[in-house]
């Protein structure tokens, strides 16, 4: 219940931390992680993976968030693995090489076996050899990035991680490239992606929190350390509380993604997203404010971590859309309660 990682989760998280800490020596972080088979945590066992679930990911992704590592751990490792594991036999065959998950929405159209339209802001697509595309009808498609009619516009996100917009012009789908349907897969992957970015942001925000606490204890103004000013103490306490609550929600979201309780999963994931677009955004603003000028310089590591939190906020559905989804869930649940209890009260 205290959400501390179990010994196995801790061991894996430590392995990641070690690789991040030794970045680039002797191999790149990405190569090193691949070497240690840490990129296949969530992959099905028959593809050389470990079949890890969302709860197993939290510690690892938090480690990545805290380290600021730009590697596409979510888009090009965790998510394609989760997708393939969940789809099981319904998954298409995927070739060797880098694979990235792309979640299609209504901007992509399938007609006569051809895809036209676009999928925007796909994290990790910059390194992919193969796109694992999840269609809104819950089927997975495996497509080489050099498929005819497919073009990628590659760029960096705010936080330095790579992404791409995918443009499809009559891209033909070959027989073997399309898997069978896995009911609920698309919605599940959307929530799992939101959860994964939130776990990453959790690491970043906890690092920001520690950094801010330390800064308050050392920086002096007006002849006193900053931490002796009550208004700053209280602001730091608010950051502490909000991040503790966020931690609770991220673990809840991960646990619900591993469960079959769809309503609870949506409730938890939308709550997490609501926190990212609300209290967490306020927390990073407050942490910058508590630092003063140094907090807005590019050189100081806070800014890059803050942008990582903002990316988690912006991707995988806006805070507004998750607020609306959560409100709908509440309305439905409250009406359902009415049907069970029949206790309608006359209020007006």
């Amino acid at each position, binding site marked *: *219940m*205290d*959400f501390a990682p179990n010994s196995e989760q801790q061991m894996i998280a430590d392995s990641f931390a070690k690789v991040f800490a030794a970045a680039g020596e002797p191999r790149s972080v990405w190569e090193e992680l691949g070497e240690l088979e840490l990129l296949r945590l969530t992959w099905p066992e028959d593809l050389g993976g470990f079949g890890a679930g969302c709860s197993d990911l939290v510690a690892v992704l938090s480690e990545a968030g805290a380290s600021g590592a730009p590697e596409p751990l979510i888009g090009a490792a965790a998510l394609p693995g989760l997708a393939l594991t969940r789809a099981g036999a319904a998954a298409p065959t995927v070739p060797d090489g880098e694979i990235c998950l792309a979640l299609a929405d209504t901007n992509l159209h399938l007609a006569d076996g051809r895809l036209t339209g676009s999928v925007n802001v796909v994290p990790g697509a910059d390194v992919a050899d193969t796109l694992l595309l999840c269609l809104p009808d819950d089927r997975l498609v495996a497509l080489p990035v050099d498929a005819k009619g497919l073009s990628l516009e590659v760029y960096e996100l705010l936080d330095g991680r790579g992404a791409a917009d995918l443009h499809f012009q009559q891209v033909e789908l070959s027989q073997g490239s399309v898997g069978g349907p896995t009911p609920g897969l698309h919605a599940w992957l959307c929530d799992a992606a939101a959860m994964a970015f939130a776990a990453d942001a959790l690491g970043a925000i906890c690092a920001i929190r520690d950094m801010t*606490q330390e800064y*308050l*204890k050392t920086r002096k103004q007006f002849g006193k350390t900053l*931490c*002796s000013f*009550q208004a700053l*103490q*209280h602001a*730091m*306490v*608010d950051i*502490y*509380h909000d991040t*503790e*609550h*966020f931690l*609770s*929600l991220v*673990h*809840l979201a991960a*646990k*619900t993604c591993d*469960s079959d*309780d769809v309503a*609870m999963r949506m*409730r*938890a994931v*939308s*709550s*997490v997203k*609501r*926190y990212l677009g*609300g209290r967490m955004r306020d927390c990073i603003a407050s942490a910058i404010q508590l630092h003063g000028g140094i907090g807005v310089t590019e050189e100081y590591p806070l800014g890059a971590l803050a942008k990582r939190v903002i990316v988690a906020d912006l991707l995988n559905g806006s805070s*507004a859309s*998750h*607020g*609306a989804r*959560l*409100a*709908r869930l*509440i*309305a439905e*649940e*409250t*009406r359902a*309660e*009415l049907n069970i209890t029949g*206790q*309608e*009260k*006359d*209020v*007006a």
Partner: protein
Amino acid sequence: MELFYTKADIAFRDEVRAFLDTHLPQELSDTFFNFKRHSWEQMIRWHKILANKGWVAAHWPVEHGGTGWTPMQQYIFDSEAMMAGAPRLRPFGLKMIGPVLMRFGTDAQKERFLPRILSAEDYWCQGFSEPGAGSDLASLKTRAVRDGDDYIVNGQKTWTTTAQHANWMFTLVRTDPQAEKPQAGISMLLIDLSSPGVTVRPIRTIDGDHHVNEVFLEDVRVPTNLLVGEENRGWTCAKFLLGNERVSIANVGQSKAEMSLLKRLARDRKIDGVALIDDPVFGAKLADLEADFLAQEVTNLRMLAGIKPGGEVGPLSSLLKLRGSEIQQRIQELAMEAAGADAAPWRADRAAGGGNGDDYGIHGWLTSRAFTIFGGSSEVMKNIVAKQTLGL
């Protein structure tokens, strides 16, 4: 939160539900679901029903008549009872002086008082705050002077919740005015409110209710065997007790029940023919409150997991109290908004347990102002967290 329940927890929950189905009087749950407040008598009735079942002291160890439940079971029981519309058990005996006596009391004190808390023969109130000692509790002035086997107590207590119903009061008094630190000269005494020299005077609050009182102590004789712990070491007992009080104020189970009342209110209230719960703007507020509540609920479980039965609550109590009291205020604020102009008429009968969905929110808004003040103001809580938890 059932996601976190073990099989045993689910079996326990089913047992609790079955008990509530059969033993919670309809009149008591009707009161709650009709947006009224439980009366003193209703609370005592429910207390006795639970005592009869052996479930009234959820977090006391079995040897003292408690249930010996795990923290998770305590939470399950509390939230199930609240959601069913049961009265909230008052914390002063069960959650405050009871655990203090178990920890610091003499055997005679335990034998004498603990059973009478369970049976509701005694009802306790808390004599801590004074007119000049609110957030700064350690500056209290009520004096106790030793005279043979008695203390003679003089002073004034205030914000004494439900003292009008109580027959006993646990009190902090100054026994050594010369002590170096103000906390060092304080002792905890148990005072029989029927003693000569005790006067209880009501304080009306802005919600129109009579929750709190002033208690005047004039040459009140208190036998020395009613001292809890050591003389001049009462601050230790008080800190232990305040930690428990703060968790009690956080009250996650009650918030859960009030969230569900708020949602019903919003479901049944129509604005221009549309149910308020379907209004996007109100919905967004409700969603944020839900997210905050969900976070609080899980954080509470994280915290409870670290508490041993009868043990200290530790630094987490401040965190729970801070956010918990804010959540309760926001629930009431949204309920007030839901009622709109219908919240403006003053319903005097609310003070007597009346009222309805229209004045539920505004009354609660006014009542809940005190939640961020009493039991440690939010400002003092933040000072404590800054110092003790964050080392600032």
